[in-house]
């Protein structure tokens, strides 16, 4: 370098190159003139995603606050102690010593009978004594029913159940042997969401009538609970610590306000975190839209940038002008998104109402707004920077030669840094929402794979269309098809936007369809579809006869004996529970085992280790039990290990003789622990009878007959399970669809943005075509054909991806076979194609109706 030029280089240290140079701001504002409507559209593509994030995050924060505020009402008491057995005398003495106000509740599942409609239904029965809830209240209609049901032969019944059976307040209903008068509809319980009613509608009646119902019999699965309300001075947590030895010895479970709060808080966080991820996908999609829009925008600014460079603007100055525009757009998008989000959060409580155990107020959460805006601004900026980097390579030579091609650096480290930052931002967000690095990585990888596959499909489409171009087609079809691969095509962007939207919606639908089909298949092909349980030994023969008399087969009669695990290989389970080094599941150690005995395997069982022992001949012989595969894994037990069971007070030593694999998806009783014949016959037991009713009517008639003859016997049929699963899935799907709506809206905005972005180019082509003699109809057809192919291919790719994802979910997560649904997929395909064409053509309006010169002048 000559001395003079070196000196000059030193003298020409950048002046005012910073983003805060007023000229940069002025130029950014000037340059955005005439483009603001278009820029606003790009802005709105991220606004929707930010709105979703802000809304969900606000709801999450409000939920936290509501759970804190309504903490005591969540439990309704200061302390809850529960047991699967009636409380022992020592426990009762302990309760007496604890003092405070106490309420008793006995809960179990039983059939209820509505005489007016002759309807029967399995319900969750709760017999209550005392003033529970001490905090919060039962939401009932009429409201007086919350107290009036506690006296007399009255019942409070789940609102949905009354609606289902056309029963009204004042009607009677039968629970076991007792007829109750319905005094109120139960709308909401403190601490319980409405969705919990799907698993079993709730019925309350006074505990004083429990015995008369004759429902508490041997083998019935009953929960005994005591609710305590203490003076303020008593700390429930400390109290639980003090009585822990007794609680553990008696296998009693406790819940305090703190534990309920933590449990609910976690569940609600899981819900809002999951929904945030769905919202984040919308933001991601919008960010891709921003990248695409900025890319096209910069392409159209090449000449202006070259002029600036020619007039002496430094690279960083020109870069900063457009960076500032992107920042302003991102900020504006974030503000608008946050404002919409604040509004949407007022709608969310009603969308989520079935899943919320607390009353939710829609307060503005500034941290949620800040988080959402930060996420939006970061993503918009990162994605906008990708195309902005190209500004650095724009040569001033473009002013002299319009065809001069700027060669981008193939290995631009900044580009790779940006890719890394984007991956990091996505992973970081997902990790924060999913509270685990692995889940975060999986989410980021899945999103990356979806975008990658959609991009690859777009590339493949352009290459294949070009390679196998149908030269024999008519001009309009060829022209429309050629638009897919010509310079400045929109194929990649639209494939991403439309494909991803179609992918989300279809995956949701296919997964729901697979799960429902799995349940409905359970009862197909002469498989059992109706199960009666809690049948006492002396009722067994008569119950079976009743079934046969109805013309239905008794397909299985299974004895059930309840027991608890006492020792594993000589180690007491209580000791194991305290051992922090053991990996044995606490749940498997604590649970009450409902076991059976027989001399053969069912056709849904298969021995995978050891040998099945059919019967024990002598009482001195070793009892070899068969363990189900999953419970064996939970207990870390293998063939040959010793298990000691407490069979209702009698210790029974056994060895694991075999491990079975069980197909649980069949409607027949299956067991974790299966005993051989000759051991449990004399133990207190109850029975289950399995049958198959060819129609819902026959099933209902038999259940009515059974309930009237044996009020303690409960029946559950496949139709009920199907309805329950369907109702739950519909509720869940509604919430997810609501969130997916953000992605779809973003997809539509990105689609409209892409169409508008290419509007000028399309105008020039259309005008040229019209100048050359094409009529309005031909121009319109060419556009329609282009959007037809774009929408069709994008939707098809999305559907293929959805099929693969749903298959993976079905096989790997739900462990069932995948159920394809051709017709709904076809409907989605047609809808998406139609929508794409509609938006494409709507945006092209005004081009084809006006004289070519007028259009060119207006758009210049």
């Amino acid at each position: 370098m000559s001395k003079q030029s070196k000196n000059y280089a030193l003298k020409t240290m950048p002046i005012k190159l910073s983003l805060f140079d007023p000229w940069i701001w002025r130029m950014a504002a000037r340059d955005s003139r005439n483009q603001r409507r278009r820029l606003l559209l790009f802005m709105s593509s991220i606004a929707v995603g930010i709105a979703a994030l802000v809304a969900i995050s606000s709801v999450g924060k409000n939920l936290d606050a509501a759970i804190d505020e309504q903490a005591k009402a969540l439990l309704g008491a200061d302390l809850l102690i529960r047991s699967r057995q009636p409380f022992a005398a020592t426990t009762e003495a302990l309760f007496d010593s604890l003092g405070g106000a106490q309420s008793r509740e006995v809960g179990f599942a039983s059939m209820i009978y509505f005489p007016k409609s002759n309807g029967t239904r399995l319900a969750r029965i709760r017999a209550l004594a005392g003033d529970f809830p001490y905090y919060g209240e039962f939401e009932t209609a009429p409201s007086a029913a919350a107290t009036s049901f506690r006296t007399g032969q009255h019942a409070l019944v789940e609102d949905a159940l009354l609606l289902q059976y056309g029963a009204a307040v004042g009607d009677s209903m039968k629970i076991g042997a007792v007829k109750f008068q319905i005094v109120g509809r139960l709308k909401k319980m403190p601490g319980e969401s409405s969705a919990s009613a799907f698993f079993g509608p709730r019925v309350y009646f006074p505990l004083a009538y429990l015995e008369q119902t004759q429902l508490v019999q041997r083998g019935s699965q009953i929960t005994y609970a005591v609710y305590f309300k203490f003076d303020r001075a008593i700390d429930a947590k400390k109290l639980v610590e003090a009585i822990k030895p007794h609680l553990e010895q008696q296998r009693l479970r406790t819940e305090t306000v703190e534990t309920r709060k933590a449990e609910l808080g976690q569940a609600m966080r899981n819900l809002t975190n999951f929904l945030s991820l769905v919202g984040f996908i919308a933001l991601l999609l919008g960010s891709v839209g921003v990248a695409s829009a900025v890319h096209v925008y910069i392409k159209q600014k090449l000449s202006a940038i070259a002029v600036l460079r020619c007039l002496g603007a430094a690279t960083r100055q020109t870069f900063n002008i457009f960076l500032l525009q992107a920042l302003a757009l991102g900020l504006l998008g974030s503000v608008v998104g946050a404002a919409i989000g604040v509004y949407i959060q007022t709608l969310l409580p009603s969308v989520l109402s079935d899943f919320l155990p607390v009353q939710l107020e829609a307060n503005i959460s500034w941290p949620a707004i800040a988080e959402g805006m930060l996420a939006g601004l970061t993503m918009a900026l990162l994605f906008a920077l990708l195309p902005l980097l190209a500004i650095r390579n724009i040569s001033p030579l473009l002013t002299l030669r319009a065809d001069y091609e700027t060669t981008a650096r193939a290995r631009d480290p900044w580009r790779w840094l940006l890719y890394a930052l984007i991956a990091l931002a996505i992973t970081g967000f997902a990790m924060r929402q999913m509270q685990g690095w692995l889940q975060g990585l999986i989410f980021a990888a899945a999103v990356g794979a979806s975008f990658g596959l959609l991009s690859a499909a777009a590339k493949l489409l352009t290459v294949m269309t070009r390679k196998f171009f149908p030269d024999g087609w008519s001009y309009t079809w060829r022209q429309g098809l050629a638009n897919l691969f010509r310079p400045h095509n929109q194929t990649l962007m639209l494939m991403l936007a439309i494909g991803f939207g179609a992918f989300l919606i279809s995956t949701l639908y296919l997964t729901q369809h697979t799960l429902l089909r799995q349940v409905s298949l359970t009862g197909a092909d002469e498989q059992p579809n109706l199960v009666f349980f809690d049948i006492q030994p002396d009722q067994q023969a008569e119950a079976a006869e009743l079934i046969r008399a109805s013309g239905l087969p008794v397909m299985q009669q299974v004895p059930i004996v309840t027991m608890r695990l006492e020792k594993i290989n000589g180690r007491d389970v209580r000791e194991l529970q305290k051992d922090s080094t053991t990996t044995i599941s606490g749940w498997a150690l604590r649970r009450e085992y409902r076991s059976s005995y027989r001399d053969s395997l069912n056709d849904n069982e298969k021995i995978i280790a050891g040998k099945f022992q059919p019967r024990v001949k002598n009482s001195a012989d070793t009892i070899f039990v068969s363990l189900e595969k999953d419970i064996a894994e939970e207990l870390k037990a293998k063939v040959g290990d010793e298990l000691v069971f407490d069979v209702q007070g009698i210790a029974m030593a056994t060895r694991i003789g075999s491990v079975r694999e069980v197909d649980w998806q069949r409607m027949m009783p299956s067991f974790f622990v299966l005993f051989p014949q000759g051991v449990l016959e004399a133990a207190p037991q109850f029975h289950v009878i399995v049958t198959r009713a060819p129609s819902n009517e026959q099933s209902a008639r038999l259940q009515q007959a059974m309930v009237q003859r044996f009020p303690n016997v409960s029946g559950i049929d496949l139709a009920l399970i199907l309805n329950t699963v369907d109702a739950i899935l519909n509720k869940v799907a509604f919430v997810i669809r609501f969130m997916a709506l953000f992605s779809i809206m973003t997809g539509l905005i990105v689609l409209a943005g892409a169409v508008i972005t290419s509007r000028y180019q399309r105008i020039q082509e259309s005008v040229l075509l019209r100048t050359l003699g094409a009529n309005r109809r031909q121009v319109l057809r060419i556009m329609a054909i282009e959007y037809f192919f774009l929408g069709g291919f994008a939707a098809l790719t999305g559907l293929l991806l959805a099929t693969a994802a749903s298959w993976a979910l079905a096989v790997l997560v739900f462990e069932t076979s995948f159920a394809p649904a051709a017709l709904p997929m076809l409907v989605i395909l047609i809808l998406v194609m139609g929508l794409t064409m509609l938006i494409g053509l709507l945006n092209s309006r005004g081009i084809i109706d006006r004289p070519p010169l007028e259009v060119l002048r207006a758009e210049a």
Partner: protein
Amino acid sequence: MISSPVLSVKNLSKSYNSGDRTLTVLSHVTFSLAKAATCAIVGPSGSGKTTLLGLCAGLDRPSTGAVAIHGIDLENLDEDARAKIRNEFVGFVFQNFQLMPTLTALENVMVPLELRGESRVKARAAELLHRVGLEKRLHHYPAQLSGGEQQRVALARAFINRPKILFADEPTGNLDAETSEKIVHLLFDLNREARTTLVLVTHNLELAQRTQRIIRLKGGAVIADESTNNKYTENVLVEAI
């Protein structure tokens, strides 16, 4: 006394690699221009005129040879330093005007001075626009101006930074004969007033004849470098002496 060269071009060549072939578009060009000198570069299409202009203005880098503007060697300057040189010493007029479509006429003219960080440039820009006869079109956008008006705005922009040298690439190439004549008059008048060195790339020999010197290019090489004797030349020489 005659001043030192404003533009010095030494042994300038430009080649491109096309596969395994090397395509030379400019070969060993050498010339220099003094202050207020006017020069036309003429030649058929593909003769290397625009390439030479781009290299002289520091818009591109030569394969070999050197260019110095106002005594500053461009060879080892980075892109931003060359941009600064252009901003301080160079003015441009393009065939297709190259106005920024989102800026008004006034704003377009202000840009070179604003880039320097100068404030209060509006008056000078308005004055120049007045000088080129566009005092009533200050706030019009390029799309609202005719071709001739756009080129006048470009002329005002080219002179606002009081350049040492002005590069004009086919300044009348997109204009009708009558408008072209007006623009050429304006260009030469402004050039004379500002005592700017002018490098004019054109096909138009009549226009080229108005400069003091004509460099003829063919196939990338200088085939003639001749002086002309016209009134502009005489005026400039008189003023220079």
